[in-house]
């Protein structure tokens, strides 16, 4: 950029920054939006390089209409979050096409900030933060550069100034971040906030968790107090599905009234396992706990309730990362022990689906006997069938048709945990045994760097619970019958990895694992300290500051006190500066005091020339007296001559370098 004229260089720099801002959004905007934005930015850069005029309003209006149309076609709305992000990115690029005056540059600047913020809807990871910081510094640099109108200010200088602004602004950021009261959302989460994120969902369509199995991102992190339970006990319970409509599993839609609804009836035994969970943002109300948790998990500022199916949920979905501590027991018993009317909901199946599975159920009942007392035998028979019947566990079972259970049991004989669990429950219900599907995560991985257990989306799992008379709900994991390695050991179906990770792995497998462990530990630290910083942390911070029962108002009080203290300090500084604001007088006083210590008696009001004369008289014709008086005359000239070439700073430097005698005479 060195040979370009100033204005062209500034424009190109701003375009680069805008390109970076947009680049970070590429994963979240439709492909056409990326292409259109890139084309507009390149176009603008070409116009700048060739010194051609900017396009007329018709072009801009046309592009805007195109964008609105494209957004409508993609999102079926032009409001809402995703559509908004698409629009703002294009608007940003469009604005650069009419960027002439400083005012337009400001609009680009502010639009960029909105675009940056929208990025947080999708990710708040450390990497995102670094990218955003780069963008912020770039934008500040462009702004600083725009306000150095003289000559051709080097960008490096602007960048340095912008960097120091941000660096000096960081304490302000820190104070506000620590003390700004965290409020509840002002209005509800927009409904489209669930699209485009991975994780467990509120219903289960067969084949859905298979998508998750390829998702290597982190679902939650768990820190156990004391020893963690064995890997095969690590069932993190999520949504439970009890109603099947033929294609989809849904939470229980009871045909019974509340009075005859099922009770959780949980009784636990043994010492609880205590642990803290940091759940990545998933925008659902549920909390994942280790099976089974009798006490409500402690979530700061949230009321937590348990469903009858032993699944904990908050009142409102929380947006960001959620941290809670919980207690669980791996030995427990729940559900009614005797047959209840409400259990009828859990043997319901839609009519007309899976006829061959029904036939299989009849055959099994004929073989092992019907009735509640034979249920354990029937379960065992089906598990045996899964183990020995040539069924395989695969991540890519193909697309299932209408009768998913029939296809699984008789045609394909392969599937992922949800196919297996769904088919298993359908078969159980066909045999009049109450059964349901539990989704959640199974297993995890210990990060040796920071000792947290990492649970990934690829650990998402579906298992089943079967009701047995006298025992209540019993967990049955049919997947482990098909593929014993899926649970209980570290053996996993590995998701395809990126080229870089693959390359590192071929060179040194442990290095790859270690790098990943370190990176995830750093990320976890980021999550724990920054993203997890909540009102609870704020209040405990206040507690450390000495407040007994801190509340929202104390927070505001401390924040205001800090602001007042800083302002007072600033005012005091100004007062001090004003009192001493004449550096020339200060320098003269210093010189007089120094000479005074050497035995020269001079009045406070002695002007420099007189002081020089006194010095010469007192010290005689020495080199010291010569240089001091010369310096004093230069000091006088600095103040009173019309065009003194000297600056006060030079005189200050010279003052230090005068040949003062080492020891003081007096």
């Amino acid at each position: 950029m060195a040979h370009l004229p100033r204005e062209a260089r500034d424009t190109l720099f701003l375009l680069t920054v805008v390109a970076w801002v947009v680049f970070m959004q590429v994963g979240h905007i439709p492909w056409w939006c990326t292409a259109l934005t890139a084309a507009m930015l390149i176009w603008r850069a070409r116009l700048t390089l060739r010194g051609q005029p900017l396009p007329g309003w018709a072009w801009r209006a046309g592009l805007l209409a195109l964008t609105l149309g494209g957004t409508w076609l993609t999102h079926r709305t032009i409001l809402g979050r995703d559509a908004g992000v698409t629009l703002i990115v294009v608007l940003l690029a469009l604005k650069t096409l009419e960027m002439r005056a400083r005012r337009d540059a400001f609009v680009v600047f502010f639009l960029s900030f909105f675009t940056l913020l929208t990025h947080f809807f999708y990710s708040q990871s450390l990497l995102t933060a670094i990218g955003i910081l780069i963008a912020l510094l770039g934008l500040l640099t462009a702004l600083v550069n725009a306000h150095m109108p003289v000559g051709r200010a080097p960008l490096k200088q602007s960048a340095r100034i912008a960097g120091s602004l941000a660096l000096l602004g960081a304490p302000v950021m820190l104070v506000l971040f620590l003390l700004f009261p965290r409020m509840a959302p002002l209005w509800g989460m927009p409904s489209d906030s669930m699209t485009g994120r991975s994780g467990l969902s509120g219903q289960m369509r067969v084949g859905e968790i298979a998508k998750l199995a390829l998702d290597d991102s982190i679902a939650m992190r768990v820190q156990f107090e004391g020893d963690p339970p064995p890997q095969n006990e690590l069932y993190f319970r999520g949504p439970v599905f009890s109603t099947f409509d033929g294609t989809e599993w849904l939470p229980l839609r009871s045909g019974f009234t509340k009075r005859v609804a099922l009770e959780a009836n949980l009784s636990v035994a043994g010492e609880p396992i205590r642990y803290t969970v940091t759940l990545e943002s998933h925008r659902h109300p549920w909390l994942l706990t280790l099976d089974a948790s009798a006490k409500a998990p402690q979530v700061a500022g949230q009321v937590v309730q348990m469903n009858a199916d032993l699944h904990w949920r908050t009142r409102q979905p929380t947006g960001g990362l959620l941290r809670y501590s919980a207690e669980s027991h791996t030995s427990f018993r729940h559900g009614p022990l005797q047959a209840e009317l409400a259990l009828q909901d859990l043997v319901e199946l839609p009519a007309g689906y899976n006829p061959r599975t029904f036939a299989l159920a009849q055959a099994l009942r004929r073989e092992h006997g019907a009735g509640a007392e034979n249920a354990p035998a029937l379960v065992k028979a089906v598990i045996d069938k899964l183990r020995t019947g040539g069924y395989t566990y695969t991540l890519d079972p193909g697309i299932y048709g209408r009768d998913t259970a029939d296809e699984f049991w008789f045609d394909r004989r392969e599937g992922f945990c949800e196919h297996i669990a769904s088919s298993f429950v359908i078969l159980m219900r066909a045999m009049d045994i109450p059964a349901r599907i539990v989704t959640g995560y199974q297993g995890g991985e210990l990060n040796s760097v920071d000792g947290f257990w990492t649970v990934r989306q690829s650990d998402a799992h579906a298992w089943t619970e079967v009701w047995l008379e006298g025992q209540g709900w019993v967990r049955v994991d049919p997947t482990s019958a098909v593929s014993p390695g899926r649970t209980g050991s570290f053996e996993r179906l590995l998701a395809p990895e990126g080229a870089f990770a693959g390359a590192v792995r071929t060179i040194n497998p442990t290095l790859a694992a270690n790098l990943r462990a370190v990176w995830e530990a750093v990320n976890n630290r980021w999550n724990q300290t920054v993203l997890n910083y909540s009102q609870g942390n704020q209040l405990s911070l206040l507690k450390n500051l000495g407040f007994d029962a801190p509340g929202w108002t104390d927070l505001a009080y401390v924040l205001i006190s800090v602001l007042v203290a800083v302002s007072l300090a600033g005012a005091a500084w100004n007062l001090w500066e004003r009192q001493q604001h004449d550096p020339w007088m200060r320098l003269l006083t210093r010189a007089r005091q120094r000479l005074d210590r050497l035995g020269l008696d001079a009045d406070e009001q002695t002007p420099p020339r007189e002081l020089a004369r006194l010095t010469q008289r007192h010290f005689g014709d020495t080199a010291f007296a010569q240089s001091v008086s010369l310096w004093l005359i230069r000091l006088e000239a600095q103040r009173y001559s019309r065009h003194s070439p000297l600056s006060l700073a030079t005189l200050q430097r010279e003052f230090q370098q005068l040949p003062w005698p080492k020891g003081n005479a007096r």
Partner: protein
Amino acid sequence: MGLFDRINLLAPLRQRLRQWFLNRLPPSDTLTLTQRNVYILPTRPGWMLGFTLMLLLVASINYQLNLGYLLTFLLAGSAVVGMHVCHSNLRGLTLHLAPPLSMHAGQAVSLEVRLANERRKPRFGIGLGVSSHRGSRDDDGLAWLDVPAQGSETVHVAWAPDRRGRHGTPALTAVTLFPLGTFRVWTIWRTAAQVIVFPAPEQQPPPLPPGEPQPGHAAASARSSNSGEFDGVRAYRRGDPQKTVVWKKAAQAFAAGRDDLVSRDTLAMQRQQLWLDHATCGAADLESRLSRLTAWLLMADEQGLDYGLRLPGKEFAPDHGAAHKLQCLEAMALC
């Protein structure tokens, strides 16, 4: 500001306020900018930034984005630091106004201002200009400069006084928007120096008036070509004695490649005196008379003639030279 622009009724009030404000500033030709005389207000983009921060904050609250809080607060922190940097960009600066030169009315002149910076850091993007009457927000006609660290920079500010007479130099404004343009920091400097503005010379003046007979000399007094009193020059004419040739000028002309000789002309001036008289100059009112006289004076001075000036109640005997010219011009300026 926009409101004040549109409502003209408020303009006189505004002008009066401004005058009151200016009058309470002590005039001085050296001004050190301190907390007391530096003002700061957000600019329009500054308000826009505030609005942006508000929106970012609301979005962060509503979507519970801790990273959003961080971004918002970092931007806010940078803006606060920017405000301080902007203020200190002017604060501590010393402005000196060099004594201005006199000029003619309507002529643009440059006021030379030296900005001295004691600080160890340079000061960027400082605009200096004549404080405008329409309000202090008009930054278009400013001269922009950077002042190096522990150094000084000189800037020339154009100023065109429209009336003759003795004028105080105008109030000057120093402005900075550096670094972010979100705040405008400015000072108004009432300078003390005075400048005498001569009448504007007439654009197409008639030729110089004929000389008047010298009092006390006979009109037909003999030409004394060797009297030693030389009053003017003219082109060399054949027959001019060699000693009347101005050899110095001739040598300059030769050096410049021309070969025209110049002779001293003592003849006309010996008999005739050039008087520039307001009463007989031919223009109607005082201003246009002064204008014509000024133009004549400049012509006479250029030709090196002796000239006298008669103004109402004042008379300057014929003479030449810079001091005489200045004296006459000042007399006309203050007439």
